[in-house]
């Protein structure tokens, strides 16, 4: 156990170093979601006039979107980093040491998750400066960051699964738009009860991303909403466990060492 922790520590440090030394990875993760937030908040403000819209400020409604996008970047980063190691043969270098597979998966996510945390802190800070109020207060804001990081871990697990399955960083990046589509088929842009089209509402209800978004959003708009938080944390943890287990299995197949 001690050795596993040491291995995770060593690989996490590498992952964090790599991530922080790649501005091309950091800048888009921070800037792109904020840019989209600015566009949405200014363009879609009239949505708040729809009867039953949960808040009078579209910014309060939309502030959760950057957290989701940040998590999605984390997914791509973690997946690309693992796939890269497979492609370049770095995984073989690691495999020639007594290293355990679990350490690779967990350690390699460290950089991506740190990046998601940095992003989340910045989105929150920018949101507060722009006039977002967090209904659940200071504690709620902290829990928002915790949930955002767990959502990032969930997405990073999906990235890790794609990487260990395909071994191709291009395949990992190719999945990015597909997951992005899932975002739009959720309650990200509109509360589920206000979605007028039946099939859309059904898809959004089945889409686990809705619950991640609604968990985050509840802290901003509603306050302390137990069921929404339970579903949000539950969905994130379920994705982490399922994708993580599948990634672990396919990494074991890939690490065919005797």
């Amino acid at each position, binding site marked *: 156990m001690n*050795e596993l922790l*040491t*291995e995770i520590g*060593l*690989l996490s*440090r*590498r992952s964090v*170093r*790599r991530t922080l*030394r*790649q501005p091309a990875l950091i800048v888009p993760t921070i800037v792109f979601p904020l840019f989209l937030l600015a566009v949405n908040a200014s363009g879609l403000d009239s949505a708040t006039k729809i009867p039953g819209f949960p808040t009078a400020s579209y910014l309060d409604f939309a502030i959760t979107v950057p957290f989701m996008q940040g998590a999605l970047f984390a997914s791509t980063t973690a997946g690309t980093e693992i796939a890269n*190691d*497979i*492609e*370049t*043969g*770095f995984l*073989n*270098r*690691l*495999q*020639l*040491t*007594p*290293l355990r597979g679990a350490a690779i998966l967990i350690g390699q996510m460290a950089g991506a998750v740190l990046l998601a945390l940095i992003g989340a802190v910045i989105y929150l800070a920018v949101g507060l400066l722009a006039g977002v109020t967090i209904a659940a207060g200071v504690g709620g804001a902290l829990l928002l960051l915790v949930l955002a990081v767990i959502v990032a871990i969930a997405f990073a697990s999906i990235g890790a699964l794609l990487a260990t399955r395909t*071994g191709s960083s291009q395949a990992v990046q190719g999945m990015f738009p597909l997951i992005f589509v899932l975002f739009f088929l959720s309650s990200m842009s509109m509360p589920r009860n206000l979605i007028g089209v039946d099939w859309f509402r059904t898809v959004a209800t089945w889409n686990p991303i809705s619950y991640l978004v609604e968990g985050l959003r509840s802290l901003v708009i509603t306050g302390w909403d137990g069921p929404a938080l339970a579903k949000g944390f539950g969905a994130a943890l379920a994705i982490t466990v399922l994708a993580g287990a599948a990634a672990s299995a396919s990494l074991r197949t*890939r690490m*065919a*060492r*005797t």
Partner: protein
Amino acid sequence: MTTDNGIEVRGLVRAFKGGIRAVDGIDLDVRPGEIYGFLGPNGAGKSTTVHVLTTLLPPTAGTARVAGFDVATDGPAVRRRIGAALQEAALDAFLTGREHFDLQGGLHGLSRADRAARADELLARVGLTEAADRKVGGYSGGMKRRLDLALALVHRPTILFLDEPTTGLDPQSRSALWEEVGRLAADDGVTVFLTTQYLEEADVLADRVGIIDRGKLVAEGTPEALKGEIGVSTVEATPADPGRRDDAAAVLSRFGEPAAASPKGVAVRLAGGAEALAEIVRALDAADVVVSHLDLHQPSLDDVFLAKTGRSLEGAGAAADADPDAEAVPA
């Protein structure tokens, strides 16, 4: 002859999807402390063999014992005793040389102090002390290979696998690496299993050479013995006056069997070895044949490869339609 730092391979087979047998029944022994050169064209099965011997790929059939342990059943024990610099020289462009030691040494269970000391020692050994704190992305090809070699030694292995360690290097970097490998075997008693597609590398560096072609070992021995086996030197004379070609041929025929020569020259395989050269000069002079060129060709490992496979080593890889080595890397 299983010994503590030798390699013993019997009937080793590694097949891939579609039935390609990248390694097709190889037997070989590497003695402790020797440098064994595994020579063959691209796609011959060299890298696949290395992947099996380093436990990265399970064998399909046959056995291989490395440092006395079975690669198929005692993987962890084998890995503790071997170091490997694989073909890709996969390094992390965003880490410094020293950070690589920290990672790899740490994963091998070295304490923080131990791996720092080991990094200093090995970086100095391969001449990378000054570059130690620079990111590897800025290293030259030769520096990367030297770092890769040094990293393979971090946990003090007794057997070292080098998969095409000098491919793509300039001649200077290549000979620097050869020197280092030679020192490792001579001073530290490290057994070296080295794959190469360069004849010169096998010839200069290896105590013994195994020649592999299409997954099979076609010849094995010291470079001298292999060359001696097929080989006799040939001498080629080109008369200054093309009309005297037949006269030159008549003189040379006294010294050996005719051999292939350039269009204007005549050549014979020397029956009596290279010492006959002086006599040939005298005989040509006595017959009044003036020569513009007189060349003595020593047999090369390429001649050995040619004799065993019917093809020349250079370009043999291009002729292979499948490249099992490429598939050997479980990508």
